[in-house]
């Protein structure tokens, strides 16, 4: 492997990692507040891909992208209101089954509406422009993804640490019931969390599918699971952690694929999950949680 191909792989890995990081943040925020693995998050990401395909049919990309983000946000918030809100006090397993039901529903709905055949993702000419640095050439999207990810994460950190809604989010994730007693409208906070998560998933979907070129009803499944692992790696509840986790998993996966172990790159992610949970269950940046009896 020459230096330039290595560099090329690293660049691809970082770009993939950026998209993963954006999805992982959605998982980590929802888990931080509701203690729920939002199984449907990967499918929201997939739906965003389909929305983009249909938006681009008649609209220029400058309008299509914000429109897709808005629709995805609405989808995420509606899912929370319909499927998770009625189960706030239900046992943990019921909420998880509800999340699975939503994931199952979105996959089946996508199969029903758009058929199971892969659909070509529209090309955004601006993102597909080829750049050349020395021997390494790549499309603009590869460069933009990590930069955009970092900008969004910095913005999100500002939102969480310096605004009122951010403070409410932190309070709710610390202690659900006390926050409620302090007069925080937890339903609004949870909706805001889902809105942010879905927005980032939409951005992630546009960047991810621009590189992949096609969408199927099941293309949200594996990225979704991997991004959950990324969130666990970074320490669930921690946003910078999710970002780092996303980059690490994206890089490792690309390098494994480049070395010819493409079938085992998925296996690697889940082995990583088990190793983290055994040796450092709080992840890289997570806080320690003690189970009280």
């Amino acid at each position, binding site marked *: 492997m020459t230096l330039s191909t290595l560099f090329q792989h690293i660049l691809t890995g970082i770009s993939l990692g950026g998209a993963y990081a954006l999805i992982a943040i959605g998982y980590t925020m929802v888990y931080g507040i509701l*203690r*729920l*693995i939002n199984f449907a998050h990967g499918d929201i990401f997939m739906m965003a891909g389909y929305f983009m395909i249909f938006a681009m049919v008649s609209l220029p990309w400058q309008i299509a992208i914000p429109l897709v983000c808005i629709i995805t946000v609405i989808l995420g918030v509606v899912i929370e209101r319909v*499927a998770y809100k*009625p*189960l706030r006090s*239900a046992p*943990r*397993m*019921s909420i*998880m*089954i*509800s999340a*699975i*039901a*939503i*994931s*199952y*529903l979105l*996959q*089946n*709905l996508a*199969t*029903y*509406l758009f*058929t199971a055949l892969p659909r070509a993702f529209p090309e955004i000419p601006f993102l597909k422009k080829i750049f050349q640095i020395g021997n390494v050439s790549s499309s603009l999207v590869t460069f933009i993804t990590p930069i955009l990810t970092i900008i969004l994460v910095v913005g999100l950190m500002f939102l969480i640490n310096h605004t009122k809604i951010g403070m409410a989010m932190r309070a709710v994730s610390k202690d659900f019931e006390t926050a409620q007693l302090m007069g925080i409208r937890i339903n609004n906070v949870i909706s805001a969390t889902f809105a942010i998560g879905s927005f980032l998933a939409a951005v992630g979907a546009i960047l991810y599918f621009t590189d992949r070129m096609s969408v199927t009803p*099941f293309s949200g*499944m*594996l990225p979704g*699971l991997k991004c*959950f*692992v990324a969130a*666990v790696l970074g320490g669930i509840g921690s946003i910078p952690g999710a970002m780092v986790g996303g980059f690490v998993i994206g890089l490792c996966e690309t390098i494994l694929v480049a070395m010819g172990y493409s*079938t*085992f790159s*998925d*296996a690697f*992610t*889940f082995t990583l*999950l*088990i190793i983290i*949970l*055994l040796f450092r269950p709080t992840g890289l940046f997570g806080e320690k949680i003690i189970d009280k*009896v």
Partner: protein
Amino acid sequence: MKTSKNLIYSLILAVVTLALLFFLEVNKAKYGMAYTVLTKGIILAVVAVSMNLVTGFTGLFSLGQAGFMAIGAYVTAIFLIPTNSIEEVYYMSGVSPAILTFKTWLESTPLWFQSLLPYIALTAGGLVAALFAALIGIPVLRLKSDYLAIATLGFSEIMRAIISSPQMDTITNGSYGLKKIQGFSSLIQVFLIAAVCITFMILLIRSTYGRAFKAIREDEIAAEAMGINLFKHKSLSFIIGSFFAAVSGGMLAMFMRSIDAKTFTVSLTYDILLIVVVGGIGSITGSILSSLLVTASKEWWLRFFDSPLYIGSFQVPLFKTGFRMVIFSVVLLLIVLFYQRGLMGRNEFSWDGLAKAFNKLKSKSSNKGGSKIA
């Protein structure tokens, strides 16, 4: 007095079921659909009960069923592909020498052994899956509920990826799958195997082990304080659950006669979860009933959702391929949201329960709009 009456009822039910099976066996051609649905339903009942054992009775939310079924299906298939057509099945990439020597060895075994081969194949599939379950159980079962779900789901996806990977071509035939698997001799055989599996699980749940499982489900910490070895019982439940999931996978392979890795996606696990939730999490008879019911609706009664429907010359909107599955996912969601106990809740079917339900229904209809029934 009462118990003997119930016993008689149960015997009558068993005799009626057997008679029905014989009738279907004889008139296979005429009632093809019922035959298929019953076979598939009872096969899925085995895996649904096994999932209920792990999820409903032990409280471990495991989503690895499809992976274990895949292991069982592939092991069973390799046992049951006739030796003379094995080259034909692996026409793309050739067959691994290990399988070839194994198959010639099977050929040389005595005839009684070969006639038992389907049972041996299913057991072998189950044992391989149980071994996998024991190995991955060591790290995975220490995880908390939701992490366990993701880890087992991940395991199932890894299993599928490994089965369809080019490195395994000479064993699993990659993405071409395995064909020409020896099928069941009759519907009664399917029912007998399923009955043995389910009876074993019922006996397990009624034993001391079963009570320990339920204690773990209710409160892990309290169970541990009562002297229940958490890890031992969790792995026992997980291993036995995986064993029967794999047996069911093997039966599915025998039923379909050909398998490939695409059969065992996460959707299969979700289908089984649907059955368990509809039947009631923590009810064996609920799982069996709902497995037959869901399979019949899916493959037979609700098929019409998937084809365009015309009333006169008016085409009913929405009806096209895939609509059926949308309805099933909505049903799953509605049950979780509004009717969490499913068909049976945590109750088991009993004649007394049936009589009670019948009486309740009667009194309800006799005083319409009358007294409140709590």
